[in-house]
Each structure stands twice: as structure tokens, then as C-alpha cells.
């Protein structure tokens, strides 16, 4: 009953939600929430395939690395956001349209 497709469906939903957040929001932090969702959907996919198809732990490792990368990404990204806010006093995404200011 609970099969691979269930997990894929959940993963699919998460992905869609992430994309929607990334496009709909104008707030950089909110967009980063979307990125987290997308990353999690991918990680879940890996874990699910690892369980149902390959039957080994490679997928788990991949998920683990994704978590690590997500953590790093969040740290740096949020640092940039804070810096950006210090300079511009805003976190509106459209204000970050110039390479140098």
C-alpha cells in the first residue's frame, strides 16, 4: 500500500510548493524557505529510491550530504541577507538587481 509512488507524490508536492514559494514571494528569506523545500524534496526522493529500488545505503548518504549542503547554503545565504540588509535596509528581492552599487 505504501509504495514508492506515495513518497514520490509527497516529494512532488514539496517541490511544487518550493517552486511556487520561490516565484511568488518578494522576500529573500521567504524565497530561501522555498529553496529548503526543494532540497528536502530531492532528499526524500533519494531516500525513497534507496529503500524501494536499490536497497542499499547510497541514497541515504546522498540525503545526508544534501542536508549538509543545505545547512551551509542557509548559513551563507542568510549571512548575505543580513549584509544586504545592513547596506540597503531592505530584503526586497528586486532591489538586489544590480551587481554593484
Amino acid at each position: 500500500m505504501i509504495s514508492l509512488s506515495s513518497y514520490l507524490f509527497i516529494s512532488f508536492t514539496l517541490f511544487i510548493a518550493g517552486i511556487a514559494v520561490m516565484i511568488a514571494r518578494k522576500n529573500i528569506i521567504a524565497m530561501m524557505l522555498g529553496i529548503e523545500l526543494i532540497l528536502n524534496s530531492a532528499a526524500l526522493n533519494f531516500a525513497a529510491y534507496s529503500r524501494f529500488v536499490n536497497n542499499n545505503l547510497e541514497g541515504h548518504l546522498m540525503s545526508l550530504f544534501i542536508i549538509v549542503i543545505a545547512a551551509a547554503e542557509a548559513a551563507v545565504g542568510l549571512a548575505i541577507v543580513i549584509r544586504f540588509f545592513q547596506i540597503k535596509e531592505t530584503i526586497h528581492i528586486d532591489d538586489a538587481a544590480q551587481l554593484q552599487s
Partner: protein
Amino acid sequence: MFENTLFFLSATLTIVGAAGVVFSKNLMHACVLLLGSLFGIAGLYATIGADFLAASQLVIYAGGVVILMLFAVMLTGGSADSSNKFGIEKIPGMGSTKTYVIAGFSVLVISFTILKLMANFMKSYKAGELPAFSSTVEEIGTLLVTDHVLAFEISSILLLGALVGAAVIARPRKG
């Protein structure tokens, strides 16, 4: 039975959380909802026997990333004024009708695309007999320091770099 219950609960939590992130009008709420969604994913990991993964998910995401997000949200609040010297709102709105329409359209396109890809795969997929669960912690540990030691080390360097980089970038500068 327990497995099924856990699965459904987790799946519900995940999807509801994700939907909340999409539709919430408050950034703080969105963060908390994301936390819920991540908890749900941890639950899903548990249902496929990935105990180590579930634990990591809880610790790193729930304990680290989301807290970080909350910090960022608070730090970017600043003074009571809602708009900066350019007249732009500091914490911008969570989207307008226009953006939602665009997002919806994009999502539709992507959904069809992914479904097209998945359809082919699903046709050929046959569920087989699954092995019993066993603890994965030891095995993952072994793999990390044998076959995947390079990736492991690189990720540690990445984390170090991210740590230093975040500190350097966020540091306030004179002038």
C-alpha cells in the same frame, strides 16, 4: 499498522506545512510551518527505515536551519519603521496576486512536466519484496569513512568554508 499511521500522519504534516509555507501571509508563520513540514519529512524517513537520516533531519533542520531563519527574520526587522530611506518596505509582502498567478502558471507547467517524466517510470516499476529494517547508523558510518571518505571530507571543508564565509560576510564594516 503503526507504520501506516505514521506515514499518513507524517505525509499530512509535510503537505500541510508546505502548503502553509506557500500561502501564509506572515513570514514568521511561514517559518514555523516550514518547521512542521520538516518534522513531517523526518517522520517519512522513519517510515522507510532511515533512522539516522531522520535524526539528522531533526537535529540539523529543526535545530539549526530553521532557528537560523528565525534569527535572520528577527535581525532584518530593524526599527519600528516599516519602510527604509528609499521608501521601500523593509520586510516586503509575501507576494501579490500578480506573483501568485505567475507562480501558479509556472507550477502547472512544471507539474505536467514532472508527471510526464514520472509516468514513464511508474509504468515500468514493479514493487517487490522488501527486506526488513535494520539500523543504518553503523553502516552509514562505515561508508562515510571508506567509500565516500572524499565526499565526506569535501563536505567538511564546505561547512568550514561556509562557517568562515558567513562570519566574514555578515561582519559589519567600518565606513
